[in-house]
């Protein structure tokens, strides 16, 4: 999770941008979808790991929005263009087609109005890259079935009463929403609990075996 409140600056004492950072597999996967030299907005950019990677290895014109001021300060201190802001309220400021890619990684489920945020993403960006935890994963289904309690997994580590994830969905739910609002899914990559790529596409068993999914989207 890169969601703001979990960010701890004490974990990030290295002087990141001087060397190519090692980044998480799911972030690397997102980075691979980005064409070098493009204009990128990373919404909920956390400590800027993905943004720094994109700027330094792909030469993108990268910007970020981050809710937590600690995350913002860490990013700006390391030379990244990041503002403190809230995706729920601040995306509407941006003009249409301002970026080639708008990234929302592991954050849509924490938005107050995910549908509107999704529409803003594909409006502002020619493409949007959205990654989501999949609430339809078999372990989560099993947890609820056998324990009768809200699932707590490594990826979704909060209790029901303190989770920032107020709008969790399954891959099927998200695909349905895209269809309903006319967002085109150009690619879907599904990952297992070890962040290993398990295939492309949202059909078949994807909704059962994927712990998270990365979608490449554009407006219809």
């Amino acid at each position, binding site marked *: 999770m890169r969601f703001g409140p979990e960010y701890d600056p004490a974990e990030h004492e290295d002087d990141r941008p001087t060397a190519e950072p090692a980044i998480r597999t799911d972030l690397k996967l997102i980075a691979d979808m980005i064409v070098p030299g493009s204009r990128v907005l990373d919404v909920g950019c956390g400590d800027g790991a993905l943004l720094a990677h994109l700027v330094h290895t792909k030469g993108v014109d990268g*910007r970020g929005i981050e809710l937590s001021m600690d995350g913002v*300060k860490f990013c*700006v201190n*390391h*030379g990244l263009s990041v503002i403190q802001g809230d995706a729920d309220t601040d995306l509407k*400021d941006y003009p249409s087609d301002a970026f080639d890619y708008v990234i929302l990684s592991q954050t849509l489920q924490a938005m107050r109005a995910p549908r509107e945020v999704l529409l803003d993403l594909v409006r502002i960006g020619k493409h949007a890259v959205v990654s989501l935890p999949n609430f339809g994963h078999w372990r989560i289904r099993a947890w609820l079935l056998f324990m009768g309690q809200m699932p707590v997994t490594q990826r979704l580590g909060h209790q029901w009463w303190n989770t920032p994830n107020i709008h969790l969905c399954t891959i099927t739910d998200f695909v349905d929403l895209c269809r309903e609002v006319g967002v085109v899914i150009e690619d879907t990559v599904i990952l297992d609990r070890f962040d290993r790529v398990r295939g492309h596409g949202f059909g078949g068993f994807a909704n059962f075996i994927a712990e998270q999914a990365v979608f490449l989207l554009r407006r219809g």
Partner: protein
Amino acid sequence: MCSSECDPAKFMPTEQPALDTATVGADLEHEPRLMLATSRPMPLDCGEQLRSFPVAYRTFGSLNADKSNAILICHALTGDQYVIGRNPVTGKPGWWEIAVGPGRPIDTDRFFVICANALGGCMGTAGPREIDPATGEPYGLNFPVITIADMVRAQKLLVDHLGISQLFAVIGGSMGGMQVLQWASDYPDSVFAALPLAAAPRHSAQNIAFGEVGRQAIMADPDWCGGNYVRQGKRPERGLAVARMAAHITYLSETALQRKFGRNLQDRAGFTYGFGADFQVESYLRYQGNAFVERFDANSYLYITRAMDYFDLAREHGGVLSRAFLHNGRATPVRFCVISFSSDWLFPTAVSREIVHSLNAVAANVSFVEVTTDKGHDAFLLDEPELHQVLSGFLDGCATHRGLPRRRRGLR
């Protein structure tokens, strides 16, 4: 600005010292001083123009071969060009020693730092205290009313004179931040990065109201003499001191005032049941007022506060602030770093956020940080490690993009 004067240990007088009017800057040379607009007059927003007027400025560090490492610092209302080093008028260190110098965030080992006394000021640049060449007398109220854009226009002439086609950065707090915004808006090709600190895109009604209290205090002083006090050998010291006292409260936060002074008494065991400075906070404000009149000109105060009142960047662009950041119909190429301070109630974070939203509206390159502090508006001048980290980090990132060497590790 209070800068280092904020420390209550540094003020003591309960009796007000006699002022040494002989040391007031009019007699001092502020070098280097440059005559600008000698061949072509500089137009002013009020419709008048200035010809062959002086600008006093200081530079620190050295300009590199391709003149790409220059940083212009725009000072605040009562600041001056003495950013670092001894100020010849006050005898004190510069007003931003904490952020500027070798190894500091604005590193004079790497950058060529320029700071000019603002137009309308009283430290050597053309202002109401300077001699009007037409009459051979001080301008007084005959000096044309100037605006923030006029100040920036004069700075641009100076920068042109120095042969710098693009400033690496323009940095300033408060009124300096207004100038930064004006620079980025008026000369987007001449500015690589813009850092407005504790700034606002316009003076609010409350800001104007405080400005008016200060001006009325000055004009109510009989020694102001309708603005002609220099010719009559007088100075409206009481009025200017009151203006400074009122303004100074707005530069601090309630928390900081309470923390520093509370209801503590000044060098006395109990109330005197009179109107002396019983409370420390009174003594502190009196000290601030008195120290100020020794270094500042009352008419300059009128002109510069007026320039701030008139500042409204959106107004110049059909009332839409984001249009100030369009360049040839596209987003401004200037990289912004907007910094606000959590306890600043004069130019609060909300107005910095408004600048950020307007920059977003054209998809400009912007960073925005709110520094957490209880020191109020003046925090930008003080020891705020968070601010200095952000300044360093942002300038370093910009240096990389501009092809300048990065900061040497291990310093600071």
